[in-house]
């Protein structure tokens, strides 16, 4: 089963996604796939908070900032993968390890292919993404392109996922499917 979880920030998405991943795993192997590359102390504090939050839940952590389909070779595909988050993955793919400072125009296609491959190859996958689309701000070209690209990934995942959930102030809205009892 594949699940897409979206919503605004500080909404409980990661915590809820962890619960879903544990539920879907049915006690079998489950991985927390960390995509964020920490750049400063704020990022490192955030990562520590997430590690503490999932302590005792039985997750193994995979750090996969790019090439998300590599989860299937880094780990046993017959497992549950929680990808946190699509947002950070796209940002990393936009700026490959050897880049010249310009955003890579192929990043969104590469991300889409990788995410769909992971969804098709894994036993279960839970994808966390961020909802950045409903404010009254005129963004610069790069940010606007980033939003459009993330929205394209969200739509591609929403189409193939069995369950699509929005978290709104910690409240759960099911846009597609439902979770197993």
């Amino acid at each position, binding site marked *: 089963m594949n699940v897409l979880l979206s919503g605004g920030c500080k909404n409980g998405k990661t915590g809820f996604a962890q619960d879903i991943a544990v539920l879907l795993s049915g006690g079998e192997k489950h991985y927390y796939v960390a995509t964020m590359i920490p750049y400063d102390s704020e990022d490192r504090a955030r990562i520590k908070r997430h590690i503490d939050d999932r302590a005792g839940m039985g997750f193994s952590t995979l750090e996969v900032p790019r090439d998300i389909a590599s989860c299937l070779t880094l780990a046993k595909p017959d497992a549950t993968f929680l990808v946190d988050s699509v947002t950070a993955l796209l940002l990393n793919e936009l700026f490959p390890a050897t880049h010249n400072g310009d955003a890579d125009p192929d990043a969104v296609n590469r991300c889409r292919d990788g995410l769909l491959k992971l969804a098709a190859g894994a036993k279960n996958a839970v994808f966390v993404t961020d909802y950045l689309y*409903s*404010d*009254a701000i005129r963004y610069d070209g790069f940010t606007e392109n980033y939003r459009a690209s993330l*929205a394209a990934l969200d739509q591609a995942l*929403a189409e193939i996922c069995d369950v699509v959930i929005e978290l709104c102030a910690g409240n759960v809205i099911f846009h597609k499917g439902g979770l197993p009892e």
Partner: protein
Amino acid sequence: MNFIIGGAYQGKLDCARKKFNVQDDEVFTCTEENGIEFCARCIDKIEEFTLWCVRNGKDATEIFKEHHAKWADSVLICMDIFCGVVPLGADMRAWRDMTGRLCAYLSAEAETVTRMFCGLEQKLK
């Protein structure tokens, strides 16, 4: 009138095409410069019209009320720009407020209201 709202890039115009069989040549796309065309079967990016109103000292809801008969059977599309943080600029704040008030009015007038989320339809009315 059928009203479609949602965030940027969520598939609002696609919804108009699929759900209400809107053809591309029936769509009027508002911009800050060209205002609005109330006779079009589908009016897209109404948030750009509200920005035009803010810049020109007009009230978007009042203008919609004046032209009610023309859009009574249309498909109207607006971005829900009123969900985010209150912007710092006074005109952006006015834009956000005016769009929020207009959407509340249009929702009340609509036969159906659909919110698009990641390409999926959510029926609000």
